[in-house]
């Protein structure tokens, strides 16, 4: 069972679980799940672009994801329509554009399903290198900005009045989120990448009393989800990414059930 491809999948999945944990927590603290979803689905355009221009796919996806994220930030400055309505509209548009772009590519057929749902068992050593390097950079930046990020998440105006440069911190966070999405996309696909970030954080929330503990618990739950999900996938011969997401979702459902039961007198 411990074939090299399986081992590579485990290493990549675990590394990603750790990197995604703080990002996932901030995404739910700041209610940015839909934002991330839109960036993720737009990254399919990045895939098409990279294939057309013969660029490294991860690099192309990062560029597109960052660009789309900043476009969304800019959109959200208008105050006429609620941001979630715009995002609800745009993420379909982004996905449609991406699918068309990929289908229009000339040359060998592209594994669209692989990009949509991820192909964790096809992870190469170079993918793992991307995850390690990109992940370390993201984690380093999050650690460096932890305090201001947290202050902004708790109350933006208060943090800004106290002298936090909220525009700069938010811009950096947006880049970190886009990079994480681009790197994780390889494993769980554009449709499931936000689940990989958000679901473990949701599962951790009822059992965390401080933000730091929530991140730690999220990382542990995500890691366990990767191990269990990949084992499940190998046992019943199911696709890896969806199996991981299913296991995480079951954990979240159990956790929320427990939280509801505990609240009842």
């Amino acid at each position, binding site marked *: 069972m411990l074939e090299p491809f399986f081992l590579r999948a485990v290493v990549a999945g675990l590394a990603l679980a750790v990197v995604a944990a703080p990002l996932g927590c901030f995404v739910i603290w700041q209610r940015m799940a839909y934002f991330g979803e839109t960036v993720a689905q737009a990254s399919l355009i990045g895939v098409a672009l990279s294939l057309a221009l013969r660029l490294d796919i991860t690099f192309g996806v990062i560029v597109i994801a960052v660009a789309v994220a900043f476009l969304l930030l800019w959109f959200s400055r208008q105050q006429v329509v609620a941001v979630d309505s715009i995002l609800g509209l745009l993420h379909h548009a982004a996905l449609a554009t991406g699918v068309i772009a990929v289908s229009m590519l000339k040359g060998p057929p592209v594994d669209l399903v692989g990009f949509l749902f991820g192909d964790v068992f096809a992870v190469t050593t170079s993918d793992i290198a991307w995850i390690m390097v990109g992940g370390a950079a993201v984690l380093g930046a999050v650690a460096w900005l932890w305090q201001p990020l947290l202050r902004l998440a*708790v109350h933006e*105006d208060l943090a800004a*009045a106290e*002298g936090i440069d909220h525009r700069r911190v938010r811009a950096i966070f947006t880049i970190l989120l886009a990079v994480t999405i681009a790197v994780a996309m390889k494993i769980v696909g554009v449709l499931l990448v936000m689940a990989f970030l958000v679901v473990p954080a949701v599962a951790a929330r009822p059992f965390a009393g*401080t933000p730091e503990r929530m991140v730690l618990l999220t990382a542990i739950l995500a890691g366990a989800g990767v191990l269990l999900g990949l084992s499940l996938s190998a046992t019943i011969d199911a696709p890896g990414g969806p199996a991981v997401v299913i296991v995480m979702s079951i954990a979240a459902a159990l956790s929320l059930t427990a939280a509801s039961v505990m609240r009842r007198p």
Partner: protein
Amino acid sequence: MADRDVRAAAAAAKARSPEDGHDHGASCSPSCAAHAHEGSLGAIDRTALVSARGLGFQRNGRDLLDGIDLDIRKREIVMLIGPNGAGKTMLVRLLLGLETPDRGEVWRREGLRIGYVPQRFDVDSVIPMTVERFLRLGGDASLARIETILDEVGAGRTRHQQLSQLSGGELQRVVLARALLRDPDLLVLDEPVQGVDYTGEAELYNLIARLRDKRGFGVLLVSHDLHIVMARSDRVVCLNRHVCCSGVPETVAQHPAYARLFGAEAARAFAVYRLHHDHSHDIAGAARSADETAASAQGAPKGNERA
């Protein structure tokens, strides 16, 4: 107490309409409902903590604020009052740098440390946060200091609770504690008595005045409660899109512009909290708590007839 800008504004008001001039510290523009401007205070005052000149702010083509001049100095308690929709919170946001004015200039002293208690502090239960952790987020405060300040604002019991479990009044005190922990040069409180009961209101004003005496920070206090003005404020500024009157509390209430702005009834009902004396002139509208009898029994200002 009648500081420079009050005198300057008073002089300007006098120049425009002699019968409206007051020598005892209050200055009011002749007509508040119409668009009248205070006489300009001249250049930015760089001895102040915050100095604003000619501030204007528009939204959707409508003036929310126009021609605002304001200085807040060290050790000074400035109370900003005005009816709902007068632009008080927007003015605070401009002074804090949370919004950019369309016209005019805001100057803040270099390295000014601000303690801010926003009007609404909506706690998102999605982020797990104990009171203690929240207080440490504002700066590197020691646990002993956190305990002292929490006791001082009367929220000592909340220390290990989650923010999302606090009542409105407790939360307000915790946010005030965070502002104080930062050792601010300027304390900005936007409607700090919301969600605080009647006794709590007097206590809160008292605490702010006491801390100001001890630490010497400047205070900007916002209230929509026209009838209650803290006796210890050095200056009251009435706002209705522009500065209508400003001056010491006792005189502002007697001013015609105040009556025009808030109605004759309100002018009569104007109450000044005498925090160290056991009486006030509150007549109506101040009561908001059912525990009024209890409040009176504890020596809080009396005289509410609305219960």
